[in-house]
């Protein structure tokens, strides 16, 4: 009994605590409004906390079920496909560019999802592989005139090789060591790019990267960019879809669920982890090549830790290990902030808050992965 009253006490003390700690930053008015606001929130959540969180997930389920019913209809499917394919014909330039940007992140998030969602390895400096792809194309095209479409596989392979090199020493370690080593690698990459002036151009980056062209035909309209990245995303999605249903995909899932058990079943754990890590890096490399070809100018500030966090959030918010979830997560995290342009100042503040609230009420993501029915 005493314990319970104690808990109620601390619960109602929380608004006062919040008011006190924000006082140096927001002065009296701010502190009082924080106290009143959080107190009101507390009272509301007292009545609605249980129903709210279940309703949220139920509604989501119902929404998804309706969507699934709708999309199982052939006509709807064809219509949807046409709408996606013909987007450049009816969408104005600016929204189209945002969708293209979002698709770059879809590719990145799919790559990271192989590592985090499917294999269960935590990588925090993923954007470094994106940088490897981007700088590979930027350097090879400005120095040797390499064609964009040839650079795509080269960027993928070089990022995958770098991934292999980074992963090799740490894959034998358990737990969060991969997280910290990839984090460190991401920082090293950014700092080296920032300071190695003779090769990377330092903080100014590399200018005048050629746009994609194909046998003399320039492919530089917003529509062309959209179709190129859409093709890359589609190829990536097919690859992941196939690989998840293969022996490799099952090995990854086994490692994610229980590494020790997987190893005792004869799965070469280190080899499969390295494969996942370098394949994910390869996805990021392709995304990087496309990014460089689209922007024609890259600099180290595009490859900060915040970008890595962004991609990780896309994977987790969308639903780890679920292809549809990752796509939705990436689209949401790029397109939502664009809609919030008016509140640009508060954008990152709201983003931080969204992450906390989202994890509180739906830690499994928007569209959680469903285990495939067929195991063998």
């Amino acid at each position, binding site marked *: 009994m005493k314990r319970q009253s104690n808990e109620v006490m601390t619960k109602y003390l929380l608004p006062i605590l919040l008011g006190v700690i924000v006082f*140096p930053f927001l002065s009296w008015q701010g502190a009082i409004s924080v106290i009143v606001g959080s107190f009101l929130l507390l009272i509301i959540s007292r009545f609605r906390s249980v129903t709210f969180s279940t309703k949220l997930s139920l509604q989501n389920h119902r929404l998804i079920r309706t969507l699934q019913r709708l999309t199982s209809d052939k006509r709807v499917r064809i219509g949807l496909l046409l709408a996606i394919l013909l987007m450049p014909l009816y969408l104005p330039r600016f929204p189209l560019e945002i969708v293209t940007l979002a698709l770059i992140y879809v590719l990145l998030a799919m790559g990271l999802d192989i590592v985090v969602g499917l294999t269960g390895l935590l990588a925090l400096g993923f954007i470094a592989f994106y940088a490897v792809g981007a700088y590979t194309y930027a350097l090879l095209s400005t120095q040797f005139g390499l064609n964009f479409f040839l650079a795509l596989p080269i960027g993928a392979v070089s990022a995958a090789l770098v991934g292999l090199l980074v992963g090799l020493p*740490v894959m034998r370690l358990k737990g969060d060591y991969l997280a910290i080593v990839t984090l460190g690698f991401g920082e090293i990459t950014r700092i080296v790019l920032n300071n190695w002036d003779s090769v990377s151009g330092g903080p100014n980056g590399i200018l005048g990267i050629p746009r994609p062209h194909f046998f003399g035909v320039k492919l530089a309209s917003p529509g062309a960019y959209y179709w190129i990245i859409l093709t890359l995303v589609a190829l990536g999605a097919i690859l992941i879809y196939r690989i998840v249903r293969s022996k490799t995909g099952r090995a990854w899932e086994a490692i994610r669920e229980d590494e020790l058990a997987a190893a005792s079943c004869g799965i070469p754990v280190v080899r499969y982890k390295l494969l996942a890590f370098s394949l994910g890096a390869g996805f990021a490399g392709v995304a990087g090549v496309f990014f460089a070809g689209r922007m024609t100018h890259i600099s180290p500030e595009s490859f900060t830790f915040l970008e890595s966090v962004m991609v990780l959030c896309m994977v987790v918010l969308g639903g780890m290990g679920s292809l549809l979830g990752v796509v939705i997560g990436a689209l949401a995290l790029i397109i939502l902030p664009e809609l919030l342009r008016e509140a640009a*100042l508060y954008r990152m503040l709201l983003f931080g808050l969204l992450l906390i609230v989202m*994890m*509180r009420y739906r830690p499994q993501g928007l569209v959680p992965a469903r285990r495939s029915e067929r195991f063998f």
Partner: protein
Amino acid sequence: MLAQQILNGLVLGCVYALIALGYTMVYGILQLINFAHGEIYMIGAFVGVILLGWLSADFINSVNPVFLLSAAVIGASLFAIGWGVALEKLAYRPLRRAGRLAPLITALGASIFLQNFVMLALGAREKVFPDLFHGASWELGFLHVSAPQTAILVTAPLFMILLTLMVKRTKLGLAMRATAQDPMMASLCGMRPDAVIVATFAIGSALAAVAGVLVGSLYGVVSFYIGYQAGMKAFTAAVLGGIGNLPGAMLGGFVLGIVEAFGAGYISSEYKDVWAFVLLILILLVKPGGLLGERVAEKV
């Protein structure tokens, strides 16, 4: 020159060690990389500036600077404890059973939130930390030691000794060690894991705030993004020493500080932030558990 570099490294190491302790204590109990910890350090530094800003310049000049600095350190620690406890309650406690990635994401979210909160509340410009010591410094032979450096070299080891004593000798320390080993068993033995976790966050936050205020007085300016770099370095220090291990975090902090000072002084200052991570990767290659961490045998 060599002695001066060692001194600079020690000062830096003291700061990293203080912040790293917070990382390692939380990790030891919750297996959570508390990314918002660097932000608590930054908030501590700001609270120090704000508290001193409430005093008039005449008053600051007339009072003993050691007293003023201690007051700022204590005040900032109290506020930082509040932030740490609120963070634990709002962002981490509801997710205690939600797997390992969910709290990591909220930690990243909290870090982004706090950084932007401070930036929006106080503006993006650097804040000047009042010059309490009026540039006082000592010449010891060919060594040049400034007053804030002395303050760091005295305060940080003091707090480390106090913390070690607390963990080794007090009931709370015993409860912390027990909860870190096995939370379930600890609660069966009558300890309250929730209370222990709150205490852990409070202690870690206070230490981070101490580091924040001292660094503020050392560099003379404070800005909203200092938490990111310092937090990342401190986390590296914690892993370097063996994460979850308190003496390891201190050792890791000192090693990191000295390596960084030497790297910046003798090799290249542009790459000063690289040395920390290169060292970390090298050490993990040779000694996977960190300098003082032992490899725990896997349970089947």
